[in-house]
């Protein structure tokens, strides 16, 4: 980056998603900082920064791998705390998929608002700034008293659709009422039709009855959502769309969490493709699921880091995806 020594970007990577950190570092033309991260025999996490971060602008990249959410979160907190103790000037937590984002409201008696707890924990550990991608609910930004930059995968998705499909043949479909806004935004940018599937959800991760609102006949139906977890919703929605005469169905999803039997569910579904970004480490899932395509989101994150560091506006990234 800049030639002057003082206050440079220090990119620190957690253990959950080193590939993403490497890509971001490459994009920024810097090296990932040397760190030591290990677990004691009793599984307590220990972390040490291998180089000075005094008065530096520290960016800590930690996604949370499926099944290891708490492990990744604790490691992130310890990393932040270590950098705070080591006199970093500013600590930005880059959390592409925000953990516990779905536990964001007291929807039942005594239900914990875990997303707020995570927000408070990050600030308590010493984070000065948060960079994330496609928060499940933008209100989570309000849980923080530090700035939160919520980046969008939408520009990347728009490019993907434009490059691979004739947008006149497409219908953008939201698999639930909550995602209607996200879907209409993409539909507006592409000047295409829009449809919505209403679902009843008796319990988390269980999908009930589905009703299609809108017309998808002889069109390429593109389901848009912020996360694909067990993929039950997506696969059922795809089946509903097929039943209603869609030519083919694919899904564009920001966070491919893909837990449980998601891969098997996908392989046996009518979905022609599931396109996810690399916010979540996918491991061997790409090999196990031929329908899975990955869009690299690291240019957007790297550019956000660069702009944050230089004090430039990040707004550009809300509408444009750096190549």
């Amino acid at each position, binding site marked *: 980056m800049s030639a002057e020594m003082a206050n440079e970007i220090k990119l620190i990577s957690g253990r959950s998603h080193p590939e993403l950190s490497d890509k971001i570092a490459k994009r920024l033309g810097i090296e990932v900082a040397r760190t030591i991260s290990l677990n004691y025999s009793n599984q*307590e996490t220990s972390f040490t920064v291998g180089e000075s971060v005094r008065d530096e602008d520290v960016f800590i990249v930690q996604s949370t791998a499926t099944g290891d959410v708490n492990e990744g979160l604790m490691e992130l907190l310890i990393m932040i705390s270590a950098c705070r103790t080591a006199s970093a000037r500013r600590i930005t937590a880059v959390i592409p998929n925000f953990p516990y984002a779905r536990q964001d409201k007291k929807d039942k008696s005594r239900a914990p608002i875990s997303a707020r707890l995570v927000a408070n924990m990050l600030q308590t550990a010493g984070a000065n700034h948060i960079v994330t991608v496609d928060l499940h609910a933008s209100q989570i930004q309000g849980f923080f008293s530090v700035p939160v930059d919520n980046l969008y995968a939408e520009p990347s998705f728009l490019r993907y659709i434009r490059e691979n499909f004739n947008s006149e043949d497409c219908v953008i479909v939201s698999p639930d009422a909550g995602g209607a806004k996200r879907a209409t935004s993409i539909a507006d940018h592409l000047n295409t039709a829009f449809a919505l599937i209403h679902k009843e959800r008796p319990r988390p991760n269980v999908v009930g009855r589905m009703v299609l609102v809108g017309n998808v006949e002889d069109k390429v139906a593109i389901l848009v959502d912020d996360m694909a977890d067990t993929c039950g919703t997506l696969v059922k929605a795809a089946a509903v769309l097929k039943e209603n005469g869609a030519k083919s169905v694919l899904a564009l999803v920001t966070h491919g969490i893909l837990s449980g039997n998601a891969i098997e569910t996908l392989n046996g579904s009518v979905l022609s493709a599931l396109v996810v970004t690399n916010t979540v480490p996918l491991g061997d899932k790409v090999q196990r699921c031929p329908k899975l395509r990955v869009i690299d989101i690291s240019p957007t994150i790297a550019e956000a880091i660069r702009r944050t560091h230089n004090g430039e506006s990040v707004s550009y990234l809300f509408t444009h995806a750096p190549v």
Partner: protein
Amino acid sequence: MRGTLIFSGTSCPSLTKKICENLGMAPAEAELTQFSNGETSVRILTSVREKDVFVVQSGSPKINDTIMELLIMISACKGGSASKITAVLPYFPYSRQSKKKSHRGAITARMLANLLGVAGVKHVVTVDLHASQMQGFFKCPVDNLHAEPLIARWIRHNVPDWKEAVVVSKNAGGTKRVTSLADALKLNFGMVTTDKKRGPNMTASMIMNHLDGIERQPVLDPISNQVRTTSTETQNGSSEATNAQPQDSRTVADDQGSPRPVVNGTRSRSASNPKPIPTRSQTTLSQSSVIDEVDEETEGDGLEYNDQRAHEVIHGRLVEGHIVPDDFVSPAESVAGTEIPDEDPMVMSHASSFFAPQSHALGGSGDAAASSDEEEEILKPKVEHMITLVGDVKGRSVFIVDDMIDKPGSWIAAAETVAKRGSAKKVYCIATHGVFGGDCLEQMQACECIDTIVVTNSYPIPEEKARRASKLVVLDLSFLLAEAIRRNHYGESMSPLFQHVLDS
């Protein structure tokens, strides 16, 4: 108790049940599960509005999950308008990371204290914190209970010759804990210390000495003289002297005692004996030397030990975590002189920045907890250490005491030292928290020098594992914790819980 709810985390349902039995109530209902993506889900199934809520959570092999669960439970209770939330943590997680021990490490225990505060805790009850200074990390009150009265009581009831026994600390950092138990039982105490400073160099020179005992003299004596001069000049600066003369730290260590000729012969032996090293390595009970200075140095916090308790200094060689005969050929021999005593690549990348000062600090800079945290890392294979036993344990029962048993290395080394070198009659390994990482319990069970392992149920031990360990004795903490909860709820004093009950 009216208006009280006790929730149990997934880590310790049986302990919570026992606590509740003591209080004549049932644990409050909560559904603790994980979503398929690994996020923790908490549902509090009973009203907590205006209730005095206690959440019991210990450690577990999935410690980070356990912590998140605790934090979410607390947060859920706070969101459910509980009047006060108390976290009951018999084992405080991350308590060993309570200081910035290397460059740019995190003080995770402090962070955890802050996280608990953020989640909504108004009070913390815990047992035997690794460092009692950690109470200062919290903004809310902390009750740090002691398991010591319980342990002392067990000893009085179950060890037939406890009045003749010796309490031994297995490292300098834990000596304070040991003296407290020793004082409570009015017993003598001793100490086992592993010397990091004696690296492969010493091994090489020692093996050389064994091979040809004559040629060594012209090589070693000038160094020995030089070092002695240094340490005599800087009376208290022997650790600096060690750093200055790393090529033969063994000789330096010998000289720590010698500048003060309190016992006849000590000084003259190391100064004039043509074979100082073989003599020293074969030191037995009959050869005593003065350890006053070593002792003061390792303590460094003003505790007075210069009485007759610690008469004996016994050395042993520790290779790959076990006591070996003096003529044992160390595997480190081949790389002697070049290797930094640690092969872990992660640590190696920092070796230059913090490993050296660390070994210097071991000489006894008085940082009470330092050595007990880091000592495990030293006991790496292929590295030879000098292990030293201070105190007379011959024919007596020995209680090796620390606050937790996690890795077996130092316990087995200490047990072998007191049993093989010190001729102890029986060896009891006693700790509050039986963390037993990895196959620690199995290894300790297999060690023939250890007779009994005593821990409390502060950290859950899988039943299956406990059954297979015939040497294991688990003391029940539930009464102590229940009493702490009851006194907290009614606003009574905690002080009686710290006192020893002399019921024997």
